[in-house]
């Protein structure tokens, strides 16, 4: 499930992301086998969906969030009619706009499914699944 996210990324990052993904999938499998919770069982059973969200969260934390984190600083400089040069390389406003477009589109995708940025920023698997379960339960109770 993580493979589509890894295309074109450098090897070291691919390895890091893959390792985290595999570890979380193993953790999830152990949890599913060991869990006696009636509440969690229907969700833990749907491994493919959880794997998808784990992969999306890893992509957010390793790629989207860090690459777009300097956006506020670039905007601050724009107010002073300045550009940003990092280690001798200019970060043009077009590049900045492209990265921010990627970030906004990601939020839009997440919100379609009732998820916020914070959901993907959490790396703890149990916390992530519990947030998801609570969200699904609220969805049954009323509109989200």
């Amino acid at each position: 499930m993580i493979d589509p996210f890894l295309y074109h990324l450098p090897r070291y990052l691919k390895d890091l992301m893959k390792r985290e993904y595999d570890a979380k999938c193993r953790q999830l499998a152990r949890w599913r086998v060991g869990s006696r919770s009636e509440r969690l069982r229907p969700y833990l059973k749907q491994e493919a969906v959880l794997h998808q969200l784990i992969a999306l969260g890893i992509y957010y934390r390793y790629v989207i969030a860090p690459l777009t984190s300097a956006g506020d600083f670039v905007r601050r400089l724009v107010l002073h009619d300045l550009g940003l040069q990092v280690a001798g390389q200019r970060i043009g406003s077009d590049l900045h706009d492209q990265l921010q477009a990627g970030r906004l589109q990601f939020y839009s995708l997440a919100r379609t499914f009732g998820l916020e940025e914070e959901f993907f920023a959490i790396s703890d698997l149990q916390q992530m699944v519990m947030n998801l379960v609570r969200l699904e339960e609220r969805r049954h109770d009323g509109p989200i």
Partner: protein
Amino acid sequence: MARSKSPFLDNALLRQEIDHYLARFRSTFAQEIEKTSAFFEIACYNDLVRYYENMGFEPRPQNTAPRTRQFIYALSPNAKPANCSYFLLERKYRSTIVAFEIRHNLRVRSAHDDGVFISPDFTVIKPGMLESIRSKEYYNGKVDYDFVRAERLQTFADAKHYAPSPELILNFVGIVNELFPDLMTGALHSAVPKHLGPSLFISGSGNLHHQRIRASLARRYGINVFLGLFSNRTQAYSTRNQRNLVKIGTR
């Protein structure tokens, strides 16, 4: 109000949306991926500027490239401060103007040993505190060796784009000991304006154990450890979080 989709019930749609997203943005992100650590560091620099901005200081970029209109951000401590941009912070207190500079990757001389230098990612100093020496020990005596004395630091911070670990957090105490030995003995300055205590910005979110270490270091040494900055960007400067921050007075 329309219901949002469910990742479980509308999984085909989620898969489709992810495919579209990756097709559109994957290449752009991949091309710039080597800049992630640098961008994270810059984001933390911006957090520090915002902290002072929220305290009423006016930040102004200084030493920018005049012809190209660029703010020069250096990632190496070898960059000469004269060639790097920084933010000057000014605030009027009654009749006097108080000013500080937020520099990045500036070399700081240890408070314990004149031959030891460390370059935290960000340093806050008063204007005019930079010194330089020319010695055969450094660059063969061909170039000035620029630094600021630890005693002249107001505060400093480091950014780590990693998942936190107890070792990573605790190692920061070593730098605090080199640059702010006063904090090791609990001798805090109290003059206003107040600065953030030496701070460690970590991108990864921590678990309960990391949070315990954070609380312990804050209590013992006046150190701030910011965890999970991607989920909570505003920790260092939000008004709501100010009471949870350790602050130290101006020297």
